């Protein structure tokens, strides 16, 4: 198959029926794989890794904190992509996927903030600090809230999809701007990027990096969270499509008396 034909094949899933049929077929795979990875990763991480010499057992909260934080950001990126697809190609499935993803993003942001606070209390001696990373996540949380609230407030589904898409685009720019503004505004307690650095694995940079003992179960948890997120989005998008159909049926019934 040529690349162009493959690209065309992707757009076939814009058809809600095709989307539903395929997502129902692949959903069990995503549910089971993510559950298996999370069970293995979390068990390995919680019970079969040594305590950190400095942080003790609190280091193990990393297995929830890092994947949740990653997904909180990736969820917004996914919403940005689907919003763009909706604005350009006007596929309803795309808009509904963005709508379905937003509450998942809120939950991921909350998990990241909550586990961060629980981790921060014994390590930094405080539940909360106005650290750039923490503050950015709080701002991201506010963006999610506004996005969901706008979806809920507008009755006409196409108008709602249009307006939330524009909000998502503008919001993304301001979210990045806020990230840099917050960096400028205060110095942080949070450590820098220390999980996914190619240089640290090959040994070319010598900055602190999460040790491999912790890294492998963490990798399992991250992949598990990614699959879980995909499963949740597919499932919730299916629900949104069905809800839209029910509304259409009800409206038709009212018209026919």
């Amino acid at each position: 198959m040529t690349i162009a034909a493959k690209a065309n094949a992707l757009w076939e899933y814009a058809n809600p029926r095709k989307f539903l049929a395929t997502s129902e077929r692949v959903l069990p795979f995503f549910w089971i794989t993510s559950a298996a990875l999370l069970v293995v990763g979390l068990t390995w991480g919680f019970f079969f890794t040594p305590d950190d010499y400095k942080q003790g057992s609190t280091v193990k909260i990393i297995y929830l904190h890092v994947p949740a934080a990653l997904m909180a950001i990736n969820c917004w990126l996914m919403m940005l992509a689907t919003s763009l697809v909706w604005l350009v190609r006007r596929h309803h499935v795309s808009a509904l996927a963005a709508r379905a993803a937003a509450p998942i993003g809120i939950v991921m942001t909350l998990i990241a903030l909550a586990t961060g606070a629980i981790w921060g209390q014994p390590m930094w001696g405080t539940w909360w600090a106005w650290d750039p990373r923490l503050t950015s996540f709080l701002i991201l949380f506010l963006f999610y809230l506004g996005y969901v609230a706008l979806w809920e407030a507008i009755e006409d589904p196409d108008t709602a999809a249009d307006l939330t898409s524009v909000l998502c685009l503008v919001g993304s720019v301001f979210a990045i701007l806020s990230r840099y503004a917050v960096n400028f505004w205060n110095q942080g307690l949070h450590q820098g990027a220390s999980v996914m650095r190619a240089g640290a694995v090959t040994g070319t940079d010598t900055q602190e990096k999460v040790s491999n003992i912790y890294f492998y179960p963490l990798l399992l948890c991250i992949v598990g969270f990614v699959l879980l997120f995909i499963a949740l989005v597919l499932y919730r998008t299916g629900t949104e499509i069905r809800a839209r159909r029910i509304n259409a049926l009800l409206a038709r019934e009212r018209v026919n008396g």
Partner: protein
Amino acid sequence: MIALLLRDLKLAFRAGGGFGLGLAFFLIVTVLVPFSVGPQSSLLSTIAPGVLWLGALLACLLSLDRLLALDWEDGSLDLLATAPLPLESVVTIKALAHWLTTGLPLVLAAPFLGVLLNLPVPGFSWLVISLLLGTPAMSVIGTFGAALTVGLKRGGLLLSLLVLPLYVPTLIFGAEVARRGATGMETQTPLLMLAGITAATVALLPFASAAVLRINLR
């Protein structure tokens, strides 16, 4: 364009236009702060730049839901949309009128309220400069929020929820300029960032506002 600007200004200044509401709010917030944190002049002078910036921001926010809603209700927004003037210019003029009737008075009132909060002397000029630079961005961002929520029955609260996160960078850099100015530190970096944000939002956001308004008027 000038006719539209004059019309908006007239509407704002005449009775019921809401002119002065933001100013009164700004005054009351500033007066209430010493009651809540205590009258020690050293504490007040430390927090004065931040409080004044926050007060100006909230006062600006208060007036946003009137920005397009009145024109929406009486149908003049539909007329403006079908007029030969592009909608991008219309929202720019609306933002300009909002700034002239809300932002500029706030800038002019801020030094007097600074006296109440015991703002250090070098802080006054920096406060005025930072507000003068920052309030246009607030008006333009607010216009975007107002355009998003214009068709909604009770859009006021939603408008605040949508606009406040967008105000974060402006507030950070603006308040930082005022704070550094008040303590005698160099202000160049945050000042340039603030100017950059204002320039970018004034140049780009009217397109987003007009697009959103077109969707809402569909």
